[in-house]
């Protein structure tokens, strides 16, 4: 039971959080802007690509809810819900998930619907940076497990 839950937890983390990390990071580069910056663009901006990245963010982001749910069940089964690293990881995961669902996805939608000179894309890129830092910190917590007696 524990081995199955742990496998689902890790595989879902790789398959669902990974694509979201890539799609959210790439979105600001491809989303349309009204004013082109000076000099040749590094990449061609493309509305279709931006739409696809938004779709990946939404769909895989929704699927990624499996990761914390299975993780919580696993912690219950193993009786680890009171360990500090589990609690800290849950808080960080909740903040990361809320950022994704309540800030990143709606900001992407707005950038697609009403493009501006790039200011909203820069704000979006900053939120994405915080999101990626948060889940990276959670992964480190899962490996180091500070404050637990077992290895």
């Amino acid at each position: 039971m524990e081995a199955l839950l742990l496998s689902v937890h890790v595989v879902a983390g790789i398959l669902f959080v990974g694509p979201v990390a890539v799609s959210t990071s790439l979105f600001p580069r491809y989303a349309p802007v009204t004013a082109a910056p000076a000099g040749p663009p590094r990449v061609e901006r493309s509305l279709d690509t931006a739409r696809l990245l938004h779709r990946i963010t939404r769909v895989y982001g929704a699927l990624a809810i499996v990761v914390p749910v299975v993780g919580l069940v696993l912690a219950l089964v193993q009786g680890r819900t009171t360990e500090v690293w589990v609690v800290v990881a849950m808080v960080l995961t909740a903040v990361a998930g809320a950022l994704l669902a309540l800030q990143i996805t709606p900001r992407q939608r707005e950038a697609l619907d009403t493009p501006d000179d790039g200011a909203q894309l820069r704000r979006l890129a900053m939120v994405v940076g915080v999101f990626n830092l948060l889940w990276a910190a959670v992964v480190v917590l899962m490996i180091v497990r500070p404050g637990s007696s077992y290895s």
Partner: protein
Amino acid sequence: MNALLRTLSVLSTLELVSVLGLLVNLVTVHDATLTSLLGPTHGALYLAVAVTALLGRGLTARTRMGALLPLLSGPLTMVNVRREARSA
């Protein structure tokens, strides 16, 4: 009522149910297994309500602060969500 307020409404109701379940268990049978199941579930729901209210866009400061108070965040948020839905 938009999707954000609907989500908050459902989550805060579940949070209230989970905390009531914990309290009822405490004053009646006080079953340890039930506590160890309901406790983390309530914690997760409290966390979900708190971060949703904190990071959701276009909510009042009153709703955000109310969702942070332990024990009271469930019922307070249920009331605040209705208030937001009326004023919207």
